[in-house]
């Protein structure tokens, strides 16, 4: 599906159901205006997020990926966000090695009460992605073959 030409970039969010998805809801209920680029995928816990989801999203052409979970120590499942933090931090450091600008991926913590904070996070991240511009796409005649190989590698 094409992104809105000239206006938006493709930004995908993975949010835990209990805190950050609720925080995004709170932002909506509070009518806190946000850029429209972000598409949110709801997962039960940030610990459910496989770093490969993020890789796949970026490889498939997303310009930015935002992950948000409960604040450390406040996880609905006690320790899911600790696992998430470890995995996502490793991924973050790994991105430049893969030739992906690390600024295209970020993870943060937003609780269900922090509607305003969510607005700030989204606004700032969207600005950051717009500054980076559209992600370089894998193109050319061998593109589909390259992608298939990369996916197989994942």
């Amino acid at each position, binding site marked *: *599906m094409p992104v809105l030409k000239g206006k938006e970039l493709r930004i995908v969010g993975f949010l835990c159901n209990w805190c950050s998805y609720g925080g995004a*809801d709170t932002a909506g209920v509070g009518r806190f205006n946000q850029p*429209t680029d972000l598409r949110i995928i709801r997962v039960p816990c940030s610990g*459910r997020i496989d770093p490969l989801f993020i890789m796949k999203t970026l490889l498939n052409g997303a310009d930015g990926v935002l992950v948000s979970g409960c604040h450390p120590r406040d996880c*609905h499942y006690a320790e*899911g966000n600790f696992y998430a933090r470890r995995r996502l931090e490793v991924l973050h450091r790994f991105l430049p090695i893969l030739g992906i600008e690390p600024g295209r991926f970020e993870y943060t913590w937003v609780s269900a009460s922090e509607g305003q904070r969510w607005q700030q996070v989204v606004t700032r991240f969207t600005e950051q992605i717009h500054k980076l511009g559209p992600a370089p796409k894998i193109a050319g005649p061998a593109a589909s073959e390259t992608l298939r190989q990369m996916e197989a590698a994942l």
Partner: protein
Amino acid sequence: MKIGVFVCHCGSNIEGTVDTAAVAAAAREFPGVAFATDTMYTCSEPGQEEIVNAIKEHQLDGVVVASCTPRMHEQTFRRTVERAGLNRYLFEMANIREHVSWIGKDREANTNKATELVRMAASKLLHNRPLLSKQFDINKRVLIIGGGVAGIQAALDCAEGGLEVILVEKTTTIGGKMAKLDKTFPTVDCSCCILGPRMVDVAQHPNITLYAYSEIEEVSGYVGNFEVKVKKKATYVDWDKCTGCGICMTKCPSKKATDFFNEGIGKTTAINIPFPQAIPKKAKIDANFCMKLQKGKCGICAKVCPSGCIDFTQQDEFVTEKVGAIVAATGFDLFDWTVYGEYGGGRYPDVITSLQYERMLSASGPTGGHIKRPSDGKEPKNVVFIQCVGSRDKSVGRPYCTGFCCMYTAKQAILTKDHLPEAQTYVFYMDIRATGKNYDEFTRRAMEEYNAKYIRGRVSMIYPKGDSLLVRGADTLMGTQVEVDADLVVLAVGADSSAGAAGLAEKLRISYDSYGFYMEGHPKLKPVETNTAGVYLAGCCQGPKDIPSSVAQGSAAASKVLGLFSKDKLASDPQVSVVDIKRCIGCGKCIKTCPFGAIKEIDFRGMKKAEVIETVCQGCGICTSTCPQGAAQLQHFTDNQILSEVNALCQF
């Protein structure tokens, strides 16, 4: 799969900034979509009927509703599709209200975004499978944390409903803040006379087990089957033997212990029973002040105790209780007002808190109900009340209104006049918030019948002048500065979340806001539930509130617990992890990472395999992202389901 898509207008809430008809039209082109329409209010009865009819008419086997957040109406629509004969998990929601129409006004961008969210939902739905719940047994006992008026109400209601109740109280007596009050507004009846009998009921009720001077150490398990470790703190008194006679108190030579019950007005003995109506009426030794425990000398209490219950070697003790539901009723604490340097920051003895004043007014308090200045014991002539200390004040990080201070200040102004007819009271206020039944009439009485002088403005500073205090503030109605000579200043200190609230929330796995107040499940529709099934809230732990509201919430929480326990078995959430035994290599990583111990190792034809205990699994999916083989898959959030959403969005 034949999918039906229903795009909700939500009146103008969505339609105002999203072209729902265009979204529906676009959806018809998505893979698997057989039917799409836009409806006015999908959640209304005709809206739900439309879904049921469409399922039958078009032989749909999956439904997407694009409307509000799934946190709002996912359950509603799951029931709807179930009514039409579909499995409730063959349903997906696209959140086009909170995440689209309410956060931007660009109709083109919103319509495009809503369309994409519907596409994501539809493509996930293609991978959905019917899921069935399992039934599991529940333990019909309830734990109530906090023995203030909200906790007492919840405990008694649950106990009356036939449940076994475990009531855990942090201090040595139940009663909470209400027990410290002299009178209550707006009826000015005696607080302890109302609460006292309820406290006795708690003590005498056969269904209630009370752990006083105890705290929650650990919570594990899940709705219906929690396991709670309670720490019974050492009191150095064997409570099974203690009769509460109080002889130890009369003989204890250490008379300078902090009197917590009386808010530090006056001192008490190292061994003490906080007040005559205490429940349980048992003595406790304050180890910081006990000469025997500090210096090894004394032990007089042990000598005089007629029942021989003093035990200087007592240690903290732990008990484990199994319960099916938990009610948090941990109340509030006063804001630390000493950050207000302009009010003396605690340097002036005659600047006290409202709760200290309350103890002073109480006939069973440290002054026997006489209003005396802490500095010299004289009766004050001019008493100044300052409202909103730690309330509605951004500069100290407390922008919220505590809500009940206006009322208790009016009450204290009235009581002051009752105690000291010659006294003059002044009240510095910002706005008067008296919104309850008979509340505004009450504050008016304070002004009109009891001649309290209400001055609208903040106090900028208090300083000693001679042996009185000069209170300087603004009168914003007159536009002038005012100075009042005060003999006693009472600060209406606002409510803070209870000390340790955050720590307990983490144990209970419930959310709290930036001030430490617990978050309710939904601000309108789930005022006593939390996001964790089986954990409920009552009283000020959820946010400052007055006694009637706390009691109402206590009862509401009790009725939720009774409702939960009205079934003998609960249906488990089938969104749990399942291990594909063919792919499992028995590495055991999932067993190590599962926070709930919900995965066990089994032997399958001589091979090690993992297996999920369905009723224990909480559905976090940590195992799924840990499993190197993709063998463990969280149902309804499988790798394929999540990746199908990604693919719907990002395709080259």
